[in-house]
C-alpha cells in the first residue's frame, strides 16, 4: 500500500494542526500541543463513564486507565500471570487475612508519594454506595462491604472495616470469606491507588486524571481525543518505549481501519469483521490476532420451566452439538475466534485452569446425534428456538444467523431457529434483569482478571452478579466454595475444574468460541502486542 509513504507527513500535519487548534482554542479538537517525536496515534472509543478506576467497566476507558495506573499486581501482557508490581509482598495464612506491603519509591505523576493510604482511601471510595461506582462489587469480598454498600437502604459506614493501615508501607485486608485467589485479583484497575487530588478536587481530576502509570495525560478533549505523554519520572520497569500516545475517538471501527490504510492512524485495535478477509492484502504482516480472555456462550432462562425441566439438558446438549463452531469461526470470524471446548479461556494457560476438550463430545459438531438428543429431550420448547441478542452493538446478527442456520440444517427444518433482535443493549439487559427471556440469549464474558474463578463463579454460582439465566446447582456451588477456600493454587484450580464439569453435564450454557483480540498497525510501529484483555501493550510499542 503506497499510503504509508505519507505517514510521516500525516504525523507532522497532525502535530502542526494540533498546535494551531490549541492556540486558537477551537471548539472541539483543541489541546495537545507539541506532541512531536515518537508519538503514535491509536483508535479509541468514547468511554461510557467518567474515568474513575472503580467506575470503568468497559474496554475503552480501561485502555486509558491501563496506561496511567499501576496497581499492587500487574498481569503479564503475554502470560496473563499476576506479578507483584507495587506490592512488595501479599501474605496470608488462612486465605482470609492478608497483609500487604508496598514498595518504596513509587509516586503519582504529580509527585505525591504512594502510601498504604493511597490504596485504602481508593478502595473505600470505590466501595462506598454514595459514590456510585459501577465496579463497587469488586470490594464485596472485603469485610464490612455490607455496611458501606448495603443492598437497600442507606449505608451505615463510610469505610470498609476490613481495611487497616498499619504504617506508610503496610495495610491489612480482612475478607468476609475465604478466597485464596484474592491477591491475584488485585491487578484489576478498580484496585488502583488514587492520589489526594482525586478526593480534594474531584472535578479537576475527572477532567484530567492523574495516576502512577508509565503515561500521564497531557490533554483530554472529551468525545474527541486524548494525548498521553510518556512520564519520564515513572519508577517502574515497564516505562514507555515511545514518547506518547494520541488516542483518537472514532465513530466507527471501519473508519479507523480506513484511516490506518490511508496512513492517518498508526494503530487500530478493533478490526471490523467485514475487513478481516482483506487484512492480509491490506496490511501484510502488520496484523495481530491473539487470544483474549473473552468467551461467547448461549445462556438459557432457567426461570422458565420449559428450560428447567428434567431432560432439557439433553436439548441443550443437542443444540450445542448442532452448531458447527469451526465453520462459523472460520467463515464469519475469519479465525479471530477459536471454537470453545471448555468454559474458560486459553489465556489462563493449563496451570491457570484452561482445559481444552473438557466439554468433550458435547461441543463436537454431530448433526445426527444432535437431532436425536433434541428429540429425546422432548424437542425445542415451543417448537421454535429464538436466540435473543441486542442489535445496537457488536454486530451479533451475523453469527446468530449462522448459528441458527447450522441448527436448522442439523434438524432439517429451516425455521427451527431464528434470531430475535432487541433494539438496545439497555432493553436487552432489562429483559434479562426482569426475567423476561423466553428462550436462549447471547452471553459474552470478558474476564476481569485471569483466574478460572472469574470464568465460573460470577456466571454460574447461585445468585451471582452475572448469572443471567439464574442457573442454580448445589454441587457446583459447593465445589466453588471449596475451591476458593483452598490455599494451594493447583488444588484450587483442580476443584474449579470439577465444578466446570458440573456445568458441562448440565450444559448450563453452550460455549461457542474464545474471542481473540485483533489489531492492525502502520509500518512506523514495531513490537505491537495485545494483552489478554485485548488492549494494546502501549508502553512496549516502538515508533519509527
Amino acid at each position: 500500500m503506497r499510503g504509508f509513504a505519507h505517514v510521516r507527513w500525516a504525523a507532522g500535519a497532525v502535530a502542526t494542526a494540533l498546535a494551531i487548534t490549541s492556540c486558537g482554542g477551537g471548539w472541539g479538537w483543541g489541546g495537545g500541543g507539541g506532541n512531536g517525536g515518537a508519538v503514535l496515534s491509536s483508535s479509541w472509543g468514547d468511554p461510557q463513564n467518567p474515568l474513575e478506576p472503580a467506575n470503568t467497566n468497559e474496554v475503552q476507558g480501561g485502555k486509558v486507565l491501563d496506561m496511567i495506573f499501576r496497581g499492587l499486581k500487574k498481569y503479564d501482557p503475554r502470560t496473563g500471570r499476576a506479578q507483584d508490581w507495587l506490592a512488595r509482598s501479599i501474605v496470608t495464612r488462612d486465605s482470609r487475612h492478608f497483609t500487604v506491603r508496598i514498595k518504596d519509591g513509587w509516586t503519582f505523576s504529580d509527585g505525591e508519594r504512594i502510601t498504604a493510604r493511597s490504596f485504602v482511601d481508593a478502595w473505600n471510595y470505590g466501595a462506598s454506595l454514595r459514590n456510585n461506582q459501577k465496579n463497587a462489587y469488586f470490594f464485596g469480598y472485603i469485610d464490612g462491604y455490607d455496611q458501606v454498600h448495603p443492598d437497600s437502604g442507606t449505608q451505615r459506614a463510610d469505610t470498609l472495616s476490613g481495611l487497616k493501615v498499619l504504617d506508610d508501607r503496610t495495610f491489612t485486608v480482612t475478607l468476609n470469606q475465604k478466597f485464596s485467589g484474592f491477591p491475584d485479583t488485585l491487578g484489576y484497575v478498580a484496585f488502583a491507588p488514587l492520589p489526594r487530588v482525586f478526593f480534594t478536587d474531584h472535578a479537576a481530576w475527572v477532567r484530567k486524571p492523574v495516576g502512577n502509570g508509565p503515561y500521564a495525560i497531557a490533554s483530554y478533549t472529551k468525545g474527541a481525543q486524548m494525548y498521553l505523554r510518556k512520564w519520564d519520572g515513572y519508577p517502574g520497569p515497564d516505562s514507555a518505549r515511545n514518547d506518547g500516545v494520541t488516542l483518537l475517538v472514532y465513530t466507527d471501527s471501519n473508519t479507523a481501519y480506513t484511516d490506518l490504510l490511508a496512513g492517518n492512524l498508526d494503530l487500530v485495535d478493533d478490526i471490523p469483521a467485514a475487513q478481516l478477509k482483506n487484512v492480509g492484502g491490506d496490511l501484510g504482516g502488520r496484523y495481530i490476532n491473539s487470544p483474549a480472555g473473552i468467551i461467547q456462550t448461549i445462556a438459557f432462562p432457567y426461570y422458565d420451566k420449559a428450560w428447567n425441566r428434567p431432560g432439557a439438558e439433553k436439548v441443550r446438549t443437542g443444540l450445542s452439538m448442532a452448531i458447527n463452531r469451526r465453520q462459523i469461526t472460520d467463515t464469519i470470524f475469519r479465525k479471530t475466534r477459536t471454537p470453545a471446548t471448555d468454559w474458560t479461556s486459553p489465556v489462563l494457560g493449563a496451570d491457570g485452569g484452561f482445559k481444552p476438550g473438557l466439554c468433550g463430545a458435547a461441543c463436537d459438531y454431530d448433526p445426527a446425534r444432535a437431532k436425536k438428543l433434541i428429540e429425546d429431550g422432548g424437542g425445542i420448547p415451543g417448537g421454535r428456538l429464538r436466540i435473543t441478542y441486542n442489535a445496537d452493538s457488536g454486530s451479533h446478527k451475523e453469527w446468530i444467523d449462522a448459528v441458527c442456520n447450522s441448527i436448522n440444517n442439523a434438524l432439517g427444518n429451516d425455521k427451527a431457529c431464528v434470531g430475535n433482535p432487541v433494539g438496545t443493549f439497555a432493553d436487552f439487559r432489562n429483559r434479562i434483569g426482569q426475567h423476561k427471556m423466553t428462550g436462549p440469549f447471547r452471553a459474552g464474558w470478558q474476564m476481569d482478571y485471569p483466574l478460572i474463578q472469574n470464568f465460573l463463579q460470577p456466571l454460574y454460582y447461585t445468585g451471582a452478579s452475572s448469572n443471567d439465566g439464574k442457573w442454580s446447582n448445589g454441587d457446583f456451588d459447593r465445589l466453588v466454595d471449596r475451591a476458593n477456600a483452598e490455599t494451594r493454587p493447583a488444588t484450587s484450580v483442580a476443584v474449579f475444574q470439577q465444578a466446570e464439569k458440573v456445568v458441562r453435564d448440565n450444559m448450563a450454557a453452550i460455549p461457542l468460541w474464545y474471542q481473540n483480540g485483533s489489531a492492525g498497525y502502520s509500518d512506523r510501529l514495531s513490537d505491537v502486542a495485545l494483552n489478554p484483555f485485548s488492549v494494546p501493550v502501549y508502553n512496549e510499542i516502538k515508533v519509527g
Partner: protein
Amino acid sequence: MGRYVLRRLLQMIPVFVGATMLIFLMVNVMGDPVAGLCGEQSCDPATAAQLKREFGLDKPLWQQYVTYMGNVFTGDFGTAFNGQPVTELMATAFPVTIRLTIVAVFFEIVIGITLGVVTGLRRGRPVDSGVLLATLVVISVPTFVTGLLLQLLLGIRWHWIRPSVRYGTFDELIVPGLVLASVSLAYVTRLTRTSIAENKRSDYVRTAIAKGLPRHRVVTRHLLRNSLIPVVTFIGTDIGALMGGAIVTERIFNIHGVGYQLYQGILRQNTQTVVGFVTVLVLVFLVANLLVDLLYAVLDPRIRYA
C-alpha cells in the same frame, strides 16, 4: 408581513412544548436506561437505585419533565451518562453538523437544480436517461456503500481526500456532504425536472420566448423561478433530516455531529442528550419552514401573507 412572521414565531412556543414533551415521553417509554450501564451484568440493586436517584429517574415522569424544562430555561441541559454536560456536547456537535448541512444543501441546490433544469429541458434525451440511471443507483445503493467506496477510492487509492474527518472544516466535508446529499439530490433533480417540463409549455414562457428574450433569461427568470416552489419546499423539509439524520454519513466519515450524538443518546436512552438535541432541531425546523413559506411569496408574488 411583519405580523405574519411574529405570529409564526409565537406558534413556535406550543410546538416547542409539544415536541419536547413527546420526545421526553418517548425516551422514557423505552425503559430503564440504568440496566445498560453496568456492562454484561446487572448493576447491583443499590448502585442502580443510587444512579436512578442521581439522574432523577426515580421521580414521576411529569415531575422529571417540569424539572428538566425549568433547567432548560436557565440554560442547563443536564449531563450525559459519561458526566459531560449536554451543552458541551451540543457545542461540539452542532457547528460541524451545520457545516455539513450547508455543504449538502449547497450540492442539492447547485447540482440538483442544474441537473433538473437540463433534464427538464431535454426530456427523453440521453442526458435525461443518464441522470435517471444515476438517480436509481443513488436510491438503491445504501449510503453506507457509497461512502465506503468513495473512501476507498478517493482516500486510499487516489489520495485525493482524507478518508475521515478530523477537524470538521469545509474542505474535509465536501465528500461527506456529497454522500449525505445524494438521495436528496435525486429528489431535487426530479422535482426540478418535472416542474420545468410542466412550465416549459406554459403561456408565460411562450410569451417570453415570443417577446424575443434570450434563452437563458427565459430559463432563469421565468421558467426556473416559477418551478422552484416544490423544490424549495422539499429542501426546507430536508434540512432537519440532514441535520438530525446523518447517522450513517457521520459514522462513516468520523464526524462527531448531531446525528451521531443523537443516535448514541437514543441507544443509551439518555433523555437529557436526546431531548436537548431534538429541542434545538425543532427550532431549526421551525425557522426553516418559516423561511420556506416566506420564499413562496418571493417566488410567486401572487402569494401574500397577511
